[in-house]
């Protein structure tokens, strides 16, 4: 017997999704998070899960962990005292950044202060040129002076960030080596190791963030690793990274910045998995929780990856699942702006005090209160563990209704209309940016609140179909279980995309392929599970932006570079899709070569569930629900009792442990073999 377990640590709950490799049995578990020490909830939850389901300690063979420790440390600025060693003449670069203000019109909105105070930014005399040759050689004496300064500063971590180190890391490596010799207790991050890509500010910022997190995450990973060795001695522990793949605990300790945006990534991987089971290749995900909604695009069963993001106001340049966030959640607060217009969010009542209907002291009207008033949300959450108070929800909405001269229900519908409009605007902008039309996608809601609003969102976007996964509240934990092991290698190299450049590309890829082979070996990935994906950042010569053009995936033996004409064709098509045009004759050049090595996760097919023969499910209750200004007598179904092949027509409510699905009048629902709800939106 062997179990794979995914553990997703969220702000409020720590979720567990466990699947039995042999029987495909799935069990899920939720426990309150312990933000002061997230490991506590993980260990307690794991014990409870094992006890309740009779899982022996050594039956857990794989444990995948999504963590927000790094994200929270950045937001709260609780990382290590930090020093920087950089090229002479460029001490201020980390502070100047791109010389832009975060908000054009706000005289008081500032970029966050740099992670390294200016007094702890030290210069060394050295300089690499744009061709990777040294213009000014680095003297050993200069290294020692800088290290003396680092030592005197009391820093616990150092970022070493030199110009053009991505082309020639020698100077950075010498500084790193000497640092480790002289200050072994101090964590070191080299820009040439963290993300060897050109554009210095983004590389330096990513490296500084990494160093800032190293001591904290290192301690966390060691502690967690030790505790888990007792509870699950045979488990392979994987840490989720922002690109949607897992890495080892050791790599997570060395490159903690890779976990900084891993939360939404697990959701996108889980959604891609569900999309595959449902046979829907192109999906827009809507992960709506208490404070915000995350939107991601899945194309051909793969979540789209981007390379530039901000975390807590700092740019990060790493492969990251491309997720956009809107301030729209169940806890989003309705308020009147100065011009008298009603707004919803981005301020949220969060988990504490929470929406008024939680009865925990919240008094402001939220989206959840509106859902309750309209009968869309049931009076009890999480299997009856928590009841919602309709009178408090009504009381919170009443002042808004009074000011508008509206009924409570019309006001509540208005609040939902506005929160829908906010999400729709975000989805439209994201789609245009990536060159897609939302009408050609299927909407997949998840998170606690996604399925409550999916019908409204799909209507507003003219989307025809909605897929609600079986466990929408726990999709991130599910995504962790199906995540591949993944490692990304990159090298910056400007090479013309011509037949003559082909050899140069091959030469440049060789060290990446060698690094990938080492990684496969060190991670003990079976040859049959090895995959390589080579992708190239291409641009027209003279352009200042690149498009990532993938080649075909190969097995682990060697990456595949198609012929130059084929690469050009792919570049033209990407350029056309993104920018609406291309020129067939202009010269093209490669800027970065990216190799992703994948250790494919074992896919466990969903358990075969058979229907009980009745095509039409029986409602467990009926209640009045508001749609379009009128009350509808609406059946309520228990999701746990639905089986494949069943179908019904809206209006309907589907309740389950961790989510509620609202089916609008006229929409039709069918339950597929993987227990997804497939909703066809009526027009």
């Amino acid at each position, binding site marked *: 017997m062997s179990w794979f377990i995914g553990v997703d640590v969220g702000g409020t709950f720590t979720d567990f999704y466990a699947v039995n490799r042999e029987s495909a049995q799935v069990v899920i578990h939720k426990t309150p998070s312990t933000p002061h020490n997230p490991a506590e909830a993980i260990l307690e939850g794991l014990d409870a899960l094992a006890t309740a389901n009779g899982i022996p300690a050594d039956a857990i063979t794989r444990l995948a962990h999504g963590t927000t420790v790094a994200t929270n440390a950045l937001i709260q600025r609780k990382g290590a005292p930090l020093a920087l060693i950089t090229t002479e*003449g460029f001490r201020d670069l980390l502070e100047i950044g791109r010389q832009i203000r975060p908000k054009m019109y706000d005289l008081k909105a500032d970029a966050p202060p740099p992670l390294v105070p200016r007094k702890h930014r030290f210069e060394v005399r050295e300089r690499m040129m744009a061709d990777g040759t040294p213009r000014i050689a680095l003297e050993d004496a200069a290294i020692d002076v800088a290290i003396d300064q680092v030592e005197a500063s009391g820093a616990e971590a150092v970022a070493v960030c030199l110009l053009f180190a991505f082309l020639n890391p020698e100077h950075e490596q010498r500084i790193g080596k000497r640092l480790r010799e002289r200050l072994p207790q101090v964590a070191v991050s080299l820009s040439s190791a963290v993300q060897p890509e050109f*554009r210095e500010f*983004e590389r330096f910022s990513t490296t500084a963030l990494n160093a800032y997190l190293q001591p904290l995450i290192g301690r966390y990973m060691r502690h967690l690793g030790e505790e888990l060795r007792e509870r699950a001695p045979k488990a392979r522990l994987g840490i989720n990274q922002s690109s949607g793949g897992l890495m080892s605990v050791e790599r997570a300790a060395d490159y903690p910045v890779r976990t900084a945006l891993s939360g939404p990534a697990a959701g996108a991987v889980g959604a891609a998995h569900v999309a595959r089971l449902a046979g829907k290749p192109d999906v827009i995900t809507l992960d709506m929780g208490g404070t915000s909604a995350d939107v991601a695009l899945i194309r051909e069963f793969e979540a789209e990856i981007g390379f530039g993001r901000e975390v807590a106001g700092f740019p990060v340049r790493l492969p990251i699942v491309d997720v956009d966030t809107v301030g729209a959640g169940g806890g989003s607060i309705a308020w009147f702006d100065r011009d008298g217009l009603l707004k919803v969010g981005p301020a949220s009542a969060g988990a504490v005090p929470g929406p008024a209907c939680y009865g925990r002291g919240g008094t402001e009207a939220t989206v959840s209160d509106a859902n309750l008033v309209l009968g869309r949300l049931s009076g009890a959450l999480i299997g009856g563990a928590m009841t919602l108070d309709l009178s408090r929800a009504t009381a919170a909405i009443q002042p808004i209704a009074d000011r*508008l001269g509206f009924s409570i229900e019309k006001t509540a519908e208005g609040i939902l209309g506005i929160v829908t409009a906010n999400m729709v605007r975000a989805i*439209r902008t994201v789609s245009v940016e990536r060159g897609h039309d939302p009408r050609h996608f299927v909407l997949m809601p998840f998170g606690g609140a996604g399925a409550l609003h999916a019908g409204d969102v799909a209507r507003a976007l003219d989307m025809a179909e909605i897929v609600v996964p079986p466990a929408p509240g726990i999709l991130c934990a599910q995504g962790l279980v199906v995540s591949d092991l993944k490692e990304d290698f990159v090298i910056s190299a400007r090479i013309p995309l011509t037949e003559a450049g082909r050899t140069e590309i091959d030469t440049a890829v060789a060290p990446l392929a060698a690094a990938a082979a080492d990684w496969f070996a060190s991670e003990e990935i079976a040859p049959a599970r090895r995959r390589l994906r080579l992708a190239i950042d291409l641009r027209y010569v*003279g352009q200042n932006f690149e498009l990532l053009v993938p080649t075909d995936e190969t097995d682990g033996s060697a990456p595949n570079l198609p012929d130059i004409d084929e690469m050009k064709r792919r570049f033209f098509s990407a350029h056309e899709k993104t920018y*609406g045009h291309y020129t067939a004759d202009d010269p093209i050049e490669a800027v970065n070569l990216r190799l992703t090595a994948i250790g494919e996760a074992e896919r466990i097919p969903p358990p075969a569930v058979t229907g009980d023969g009745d095509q039409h499910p029986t409602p467990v209750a009926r209640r009045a629900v508001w749609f379009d200004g009128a009350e509808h007598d609406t059946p309520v179904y228990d999701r746990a009792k639905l089986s494949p092949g069943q179908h019904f027509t809206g209006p309907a409510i589907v309740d389950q442990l961790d989510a509620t699905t609202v089916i609008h009048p006229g929409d039709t629902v069918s339950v597929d073999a993987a227990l997804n709800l497939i909703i066809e939106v009526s027009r």
Partner: protein
Amino acid sequence: MSATPDPITTEIVFNALQSVTDESFVALMKSAYSTNIKERHDHSTAIVDRNGRLVVQAAGSIPIHLASMLGLMQKLLAKYPVSEIHEGDIFCANDPHVGGGTHLPDVNLAMPVFSDGELVGFVCNIAHHADVGGMSPGSMAGGMTSIYQEGLRIPLIKLFRRGELDRDLFDLILLNVRVVEERRGDYNAQFAALRLAHRRLLEIVARNGRETVEAVFDGIISRTHARMKESIAAIPDGTYRFEDFMDNDGAGLDDIKIALTVTINGDDAVFDFTGTQAQVPGNVNIPLNGTIAAVCYVLKAMLDPEIPNNHGVIDAITVTAPPGTVVSCVEPASVASRAHTSQRIVDVVIGALAEALPDKVVGAANGANSMAIFAGTDPRTGRPYVYLETLGGGFGGRNDRDGKDGVQVHITNTSNLPVEAIEMEYPLLVEAYGLIEDSGGAGTWRGGLGLRRIVTPVDHDCVFTGIGERFRHQPWGVFGGQPGGTGHFSVRTREGEVRDMPTKFGDAPLREGDSAIVETPGSGGYGPPEQRPAETLGEDWESGKFSAAYMRENYGWEVPPSD
């Protein structure tokens, strides 16, 4: 017209309208050819009602484009009665004197939207083209003294008639610009963005009904208007005056005075620029609409950063300036560098309102759009190159915190080019890029520091052009805050001599081994230096941003003896 829609309907339709401008903004950015649009986002999109009133502007739009939208619609409705506006028409203009624009590179387009044969409004966009002809590549260089030198002047014309492109006109336009394929691409991107906005606005009309949408237009503008009026009413009544001087016009004229009298009376605000210098030969003149846009920027930034950008803001104030002045120029004034003037108008409006709004104002910023251009022939390829960069500087001290160091200020917010990108692209080496010691004016809250960048050509000789402001007239402080440092251009020759350069100059030789030193102005402080918190002084010193002499002179603070 139906009754005023309720706040929820208005909000939902408003949100959808904002989505139209956001989407067309992104679409234009993505499909344009010019780096200026793609990377620096020097473009805007908007929806205008049938009376030419601005209803929604994309969130990313730049402040001065408000002026061009306004001007374009004024000219359009003056020239064409509604009976002569047809489905499928696209209007085009760029001229600051007769076409409603602010400088020639900004090409302004508008397309009417009809529903059931009735004109609902217009969708518009503006894009800064990398070249519009004229005597100098880029159509922005200094030294031009007449609009005729600056490029092709396009009055308000119909470029499309009922969906048909006027090919003759388009050929004429394209013949007069450099790098024609790129320009054609930019025009096509603008056309496509208009059509997208047109389609999306019609969808909103279909969903909500024309009358509701038109009523929402009115509702948005009147609500914003009331909101701005409420903010103005909170400003103490009175007459407030301020003046400042620009260094020069780049064509021989020094000390260009910008004078302003602001009169606040209840919720009325009048901004009168009488007393300002007559228009100048150099290209720093700005049309009145550009001045109005700068005043609107300040009010929004100081009073209500979240207020929507629409006609309700413009209508809430009166801006007057005698025609023929540098802030209300007339034909044939040259205007290419009007951004410098716009920045200075912003400082002057802030200066005037300091007494009335002490908690909102900031010390004078670097007040410039500092520009450095390097041009030559790349020895590696034998090809000519031009590298242009606009640099930020200091942002003034505020009532509760210091100013910002090394940022773009007020009406501009474009990013720098990475050092590694510069050196890979051009045969240039950046020797240093950092903040300038002591350039922030002292104060209870100090001003931000200017930037210094040192550039040297690699393996060849090139030429260096600089366009600066606040090289002589320092960025002033407020309420006792000290002025910030001035900007400075110089060349350090390979012989070791440092040569001062003028504020605005073109094509100075820079030999291999010479270095160009570009220094941008800092900014003014806020409040008397003696009230600066003592613990902050220690941090100032430790940061290395200030010298011992500066600390002593401004704060009477002595460096503690080291152990």
